């Protein structure tokens, strides 16, 4: 099967066994790869499962564009039923893992069960072993990766969890390639619940492709186009940190627990300060010319970190009002070793800071710690307690929605999350399309399915018309990259023409398939994940799509979006338009006809039988 390795590796951690299954051609046709494979496997195999129990699956999926001659061909998807939301959860990570999986001969690895003692999976082409990892348990995520690389060799690609994953923190992440993470939805906690400390993969095989000459021609054109783009120098120099100053200027930069979209202390954490004070070099994912990763040294703390990139600078910098780049980078390093998603950590800790300053909590809950905005030592202390579930960390480890439920006093109104997933780096009270994007992202409040802020600015911030249609369009095309297992940034940030990807498809797979048909697979996955939510969460629907009360009642106090908020009526207009266009009913559930039209007749039948839809 051109473009595919042709096998899925199954690992039963309860038994310590592993076996290989041929990749089902129909799965590949309907779901393409990456998130597509993950979504269907999660749907089929985790009905009613406890996310932190042995019945949950942890899927590591690669896809047809990974490991082959095209820009950034190595974006892996880690997926599971999320312990944070109870819905389909996933996180993507770049680096070299998705490519290496293909070289080893696998399109995906699916873990089931749970080991009794800490283990790691060792994959060396066809030689697969579940090995003891007791010596690694308790080590930092990066520490553990380094130890395994030293032991096994530089050419192994490794994914690890840190203490946060081991302690089942609901926003624990999975780490890879000395500083990249599969951050969101608590995939690290699922890995920890299976006592799986690491996955180590090495492969020596080639990825079969249909038309080598066509691949050479198209790939080469793409690589040279990016290489000679005048904006490439900007990306090399500043990476994604350069988005910070811009986002702040348009009022989208989360500040003090999303109380504003404008941070007055932005200068100390901007891309100039980053380049001058801490960046040592550029770090790229596999075959990516953009090298958006920045490898940094925080001399005053004696630590290295990859980053901080936009999200981390937004959620730790602006959101916790920490205004020195060295402090943001240090906090980034801590989260990376502990194995905490920096987005959720910055969100949860920012919330804690607001609660402390407002008197919702006091020193008796914080164990004597003074927790104020701007204090990196407080951030560090909280991050450590969260990772070990100690003291206040035991409350925070279950996420911001839970913390607000425990502390009450109206704090639910500013627990900035949707569906149990903490909001990421864009304050959206001045951007209705972006607000809608957050409301309708399948995994909860995340920005990567649809990024629509410039659309709001270009079309007019107040406008509602046309926003839902744009969000839906983006929700199909951006995730298509995750199905293909290639990073979308060469298109998103360098403007590489989508036509190249349409040409790559037949060159790699030998299949004659239109771009529209590939997008349809993406639409199928979107609806499948919505159906999964409807099945797994009783009463799931419209009520789960609304943002926190702060966003629908409180005007932004400062910056370019001063005065903006989006009231309930407008939110309903956006949702009604969105549901209508998607073929979902007024409750926000996919209609049977919509599911059948996407080839999900079995899913429709199941939901009808359960009485979830008519």
């Amino acid at each position, binding site marked *: 099967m051109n473009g595919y390795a042709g096998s899925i590796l199954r690992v039963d951690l309860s038994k310590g066994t592993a076996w290989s299954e041929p990749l089902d051609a129909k799965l590949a046709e309907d779901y393409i790869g990456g998130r597509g494979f993950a979504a269907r496997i999660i749907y089929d195999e985790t009905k009613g499962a406890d996310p932190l129990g042995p019945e949950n699956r942890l899927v590591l999926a690669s896809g047809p564009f990974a490991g082959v001659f095209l820009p950034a061909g190595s974006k892996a998807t880690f997926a599971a039923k999320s312990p944070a939301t109870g819905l389909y959860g996933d996180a993507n990570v770049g680096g070299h893992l998705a490519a290496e999986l293909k070289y080893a001969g696998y399109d995906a690895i699916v873990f089931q069960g749970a080991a009794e003692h800490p283990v790691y999976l060792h994959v060396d082409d066809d030689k697969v072993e579940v090995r003891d990892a007791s010596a690694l348990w308790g080590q930092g995520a990066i520490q553990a990766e380094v130890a395994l690389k030293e032991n096994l060799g530089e050419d192994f690609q490794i994914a690890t969890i840190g203490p946060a994953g081991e302690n089942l923190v609901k926003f624990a992440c999975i780490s890879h390639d000395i500083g990249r993470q599969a951050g969101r939805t608590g995939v690290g906690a699922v890995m920890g619940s299976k006592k799986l400390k690491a996955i180590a993969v090495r492969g020596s095989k080639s990825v079969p492709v249909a038309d080598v000459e066509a691949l050479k021609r198209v790939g080469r054109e793409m690589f040279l186009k990016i290489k000679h783009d005048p904006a490439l120098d*900007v990306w090399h120099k500043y990476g994604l940190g350069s988005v910070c100053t811009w986002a702040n200027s348009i009022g989208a930069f989360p500040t003090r627990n999303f109380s504003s979209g404008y941070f007055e202390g932005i200068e100390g954490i901007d891309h100039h300060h980053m380049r001058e004070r801490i960046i040592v070099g550029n770090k790229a994912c596999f075959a990516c010319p953009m090298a958006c990763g920045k490898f940094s040294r925080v001399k005053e703390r004696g630590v290295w970190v990859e980053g901080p990139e936009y999200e981390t600078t937004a959620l730790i910098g602006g959101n916790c009002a920490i205004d020195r780049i060295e402090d943001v980078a240090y906090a980034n390093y801590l989260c990376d070793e502990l194995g905490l998603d920096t987005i959720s950590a910055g969100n949860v800790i920012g919330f804690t800071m607001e609660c402390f300053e407002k008197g919702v909590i006091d020193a008796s809950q914080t164990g004597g710690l003074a927790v104020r905005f701007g204090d990196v030592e407080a951030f560090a202390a909280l991050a450590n307690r969260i990772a070990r579930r100690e003291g206040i960390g035991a409350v925070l480890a279950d996420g911001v929605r839970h913390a607000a439920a425990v502390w009450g006093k109206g704090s639910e109104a500013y627990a900035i999350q949707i569906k149990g997933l903490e909001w990421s780096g864009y304050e959206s009270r001045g951007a209705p399309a972006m607000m809608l994007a957050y409301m309708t992202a399948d995994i909860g409040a995340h920005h990567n399915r649809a990024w629509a802020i410039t659309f709001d600015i270009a079309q007019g911030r107040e406008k509602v018309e046309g926003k839902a249609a744009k969000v839906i369009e983006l929700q199909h095309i951006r995730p298509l990259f995750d199905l293909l297992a290639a990073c979308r940034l060469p298109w998103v940030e360098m403007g590489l023409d989508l036509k190249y990807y349409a040409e790559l498809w037949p060159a790699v797979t030998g299949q004659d398939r239109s771009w529209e048909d590939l997008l349809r697979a993406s639409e199928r996955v979107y609806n499948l994940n919505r159906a999964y939510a409807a099945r797994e969460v009783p009463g799931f629907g419209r009520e789960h799509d609304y943002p926190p009360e702060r966003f629908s009642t409180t005007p932004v106090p400062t910056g370019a979006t001063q005065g903006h908020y989006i009231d309930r009526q407008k939110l309903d207009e956006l949702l009604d338009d969105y549901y209508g266009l998607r073929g979902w009913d007024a409750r926000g559930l996919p209609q049977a006809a919509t599911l059948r039209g996407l080839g999900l007749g079995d899913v429709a039948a199941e939901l009808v039988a359960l009485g979830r839809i008519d």
Partner: protein
Amino acid sequence: MAASIRLRVKLGGNLATLAGKAQADLELAEPLPLREVAQRAGVSPQLVMLYAVNGTVRPAEYCPGEGDEVLLVPAVAGGGI
């Protein structure tokens, strides 16, 4: 009478799609900050993430000089507009 300032402005990514042109050659009577240069080139400064003058990133207040090449870099080049 002040000499005019000729600038070549390149529009990156979808800024070009939005403005209907990939390049704008301007002649200014007096020095203007980059954010106003963007406006003259038909681009809203709100959509410009970074300005580069002759390959060096400059703040929005910087005034380019005669013969300079200005690059307008958008935050999102694909799928943003």
